[in-house]
């Protein structure tokens, strides 16, 4: 058996190291190390509660709006306020803009470039992949960066700037959109739709959204081989075995995304059980964070985030990461677009996951389907705005209390647990999506989701940074700065 230490990873957000024990050309076991600690949960203490709206987005430069929303919802819970309809729509629009920008970046900038590596030089699709996805040179990568820039301009209007807007408040949005601005935003969303329909899907979004099974998807793929980047991905996935690479733990979590005024959500909250093929209710009380293998004080054992603590402790022989291990009733969960889609009942994805489980292929498929689904939703939300009516509702914060703020970042379930005493923040605990996905072992020795997904991954002779490992790691679209925070 030999050991490989792989890092630094790029084309993930933040710094990441993976330790692999390799035997007979396969990963036998993996340990994931989130290598950086900043201490936001300590930094936030003793600040005025609304100051969280300045600090929280700065946890992460790629999930910044999501962090703002989680903080604002925790504060809204404390104040007992809900944004007016316009505020809800404006915040959903910003969340969707960021999430789709991240999906786009993930596909074109982070994930696909690995297929231009020389290891694939003999594959029939290789020359085309090089032409499309080579960093800073590939035709499609360059178009995608440009499309992304134009897309994020939506938040320039809706929230002043991206990342790190201050417009998202417990009572709604500080930026009322007038009728002329609404039309400009709608035009910009349609421009992005045009990019997706001509470059990524080579099909109308409605066609993609109409697929209800894998057989329909693959029949469509065969209609025009090589047309569009999605078809190119499907061909590569089939040829390189991504369908079965990197299986996750089989239990999926989503806090639900895009709330409506009546309290329901476009993508519902819950769990999906891959074994029983059923959705289950989520009980937040079952969450515990286990720091047995983190460089953190874990006195008192695993804690619910409402009673959580974060105190660095370097001298721990079994520790190998700064990340805690969140568990739900002891179970390891996977979160992300794949969880949102499964719980929401997206037929094609349920069909694909029933066949292959959560793998590199299905994780990618879930994100791309979400791009196709959410753009039409955004068009409808813009139409639903009522210029002249309020975007913000004022509310006073109590001097003490506890609340939780939940949302879905591009990469999955994000929660902020807030406690206020004497008008100051007395506890602030954050569990980010990659905290779940890239968690270390817990006290029972149970590996986290990525650690499980890496087991069995092929390692080719001479590989120092195995390409299969890179595919699996990036298939989660990890955000390491969020992970530890």
């Amino acid at each position: 058996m030999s050991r490989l230490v792989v890092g630094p990873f790029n084309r993930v957000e933040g710094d990441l190291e993976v330790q692999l024990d390799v035997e007979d050309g396969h990963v036998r076991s993996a340990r994931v190390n989130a290598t950086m600690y900043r201490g936001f949960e300590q930094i936030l203490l003793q600040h005025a509660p609304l100051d969280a709206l300045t600090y929280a987005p700065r946890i992460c430069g790629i999930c910044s709006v999501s962090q703002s929303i989680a903080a604002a919802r925790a504060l809204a819970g404390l104040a007992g306020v809900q944004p007016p309809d316009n505020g809800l729509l404006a915040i959903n629009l910003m969340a969707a803009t960021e999430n789709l920008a991240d999906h786009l970046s993930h596909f074109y900038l982070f994930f696909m470039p690995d297929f231009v590596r020389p290891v694939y030089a003999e594959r029939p699709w290789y020359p085309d992949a090089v032409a499309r996805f080579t960093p800073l040179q590939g035709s499609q990568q360059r178009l995608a960066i440009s499309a992304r820039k134009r897309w994020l301009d939506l938040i320039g209007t809706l929230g002043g700037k991206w990342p790190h807007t201050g417009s998202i408040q417990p009572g709604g949005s500080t930026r009322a959109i007038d009728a002329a601005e609404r039309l400009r935003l709608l035009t910009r969303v349609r421009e992005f739709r045009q990019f997706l329909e001509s470059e990524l899907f080579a099909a109308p979004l409605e066609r993609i959204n109409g697929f209800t099974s894998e057989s329909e998807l693959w029949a469509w793929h065969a209609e025009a081989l090589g047309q569009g980047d999605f078809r190119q991905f499907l061909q590569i996935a089939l040829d390189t075995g991504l369908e079965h690479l990197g299986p996750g733990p089989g239990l999926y979590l989503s806090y639900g995304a895009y709330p409506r005024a009546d309290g329901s959500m476009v993508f519902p909250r819950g769990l999906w059980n891959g074994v029983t093929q059923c959705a289950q209710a989520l009980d937040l009380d079952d969450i515990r964070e286990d720091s047995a293998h983190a460089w953190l004080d874990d006195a008192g054992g695993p804690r619910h985030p409402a009673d959580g603590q974060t105190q660095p402790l370097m001298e721990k022989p079994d520790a190998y990461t700064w990340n805690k291990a969140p568990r739900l009733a002891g179970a390891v969960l996977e979160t992300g677009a794949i969880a949102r889609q499964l719980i929401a009942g997206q037929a094609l994805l349920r069909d694909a996951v029933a066949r292959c489980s959560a793998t590199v292929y299905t994780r990618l498929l879930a994100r791309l389907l979400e791009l196709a689904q959410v753009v039409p939703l955004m068009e409808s939300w813009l139409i639903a705005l009522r210029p002249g009516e309020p975007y913000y509702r004022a509310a006073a914060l109590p001097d003490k209390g506890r609340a939780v703020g939940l949302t879905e970042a591009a990469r999955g379930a994000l929660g902020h647990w807030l406690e206020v005493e004497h008008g100051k923040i007395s506890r602030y605990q954050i569990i980010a999506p990659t905290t779940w996905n890239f968690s270390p072992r817990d006290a029972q020795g149970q590996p986290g989701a990525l650690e499980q997904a890496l087991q069995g991954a092929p390692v080719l002779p001479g590989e120092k940074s195995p390409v299969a490992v890179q595919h699996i790691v990036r298939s989660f679209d990890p955000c390491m700065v969020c992970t530890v925070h």
Partner: protein
Amino acid sequence: MNTPFRVLWLQSGGCGGCNMSLLCADTQDFSAMWRSAGIELLWHPSLSLESGDQVLDILEDCLQGRTRLDALCIEGSLLRGPHGTGRFHMLAGTDAPMIDWVRKLAAVAEYTLGIGTCAAYGGITAAGSNPTDACGLQFDGEHRGGLLGADYRSLRGLPVINVAGCPTHPGWVTDTLMALAAGLFAEADLDVIGRPRFYADQLVHQGCTRNEFYEYKASAEKPSDLGCMMENLGCKGTQAHGDCNTRLWNGEGSCTRGGFACINCTAPGFEEPGHAFQRTPKLAGIPIGLPIDMPKAWFVALSALSKSATPKRVKQNATSDHPLIAPSVRTPRR
């Protein structure tokens, strides 16, 4: 043949947002923008193909002088803790603290840039109890020093160039790198705390769309109000250095245009203003932070006068989220 101007971009104790912001640079073709300026991204965290051992080879080539490192761009604070060990960030795959890598690379860099307020001065990561002992490359808050020390100079003789901002504006980064690559940037182009003067010699107030409300001290009272946010909502646009309201963000944005206060994010220490960010601290009803270069007595006198002269339109619109009264129409006369 011209050799390219090589840029190495590394991240430490920050959020990665300055890099995400950079990718929003206002250009039709991001890669062509660099190439046409003679700039090569030697390694970049979101873009480069090289990963793992290949990255370490690139760093080693710079350290050994096999590759000339023209611009070392560091994003994020430098984490000195715990107890000076730097172990709050060990560069993955190396078993060495990131601060050691930065010190070594800064010694071979033609120019060193602190990208964002974290790398410049410590920034958000240094807020609160500063649990990681975070600092900037050449500043620890407002004090010279930081990781590299007050006397540090890169090979071309310049101190660290602090492209401060939280996040920094993509244009601030591209303009700085392009000026450096073209040989058009000198020490005189930096302000007293190392920021490029092309953006730091301006105030966020200049070009603010709320200036008519400012003139009459017609103030916003709650978030989403259209009025000036200086009196009540913590806005520091009259004191903050940056061209945010003339070089806009993400198309047509800026903080004040987004309806929230400027928090002076290009300045050292912005992360701990000593008051709640969204509330203006006052003494006897007068904001403590007055407009730059304005004597207090003048400000008080001017405020009293302008408040008494506020047109009804401006006064009413100031506390609404959309204009209630439109400017009256006056037909031009010949």
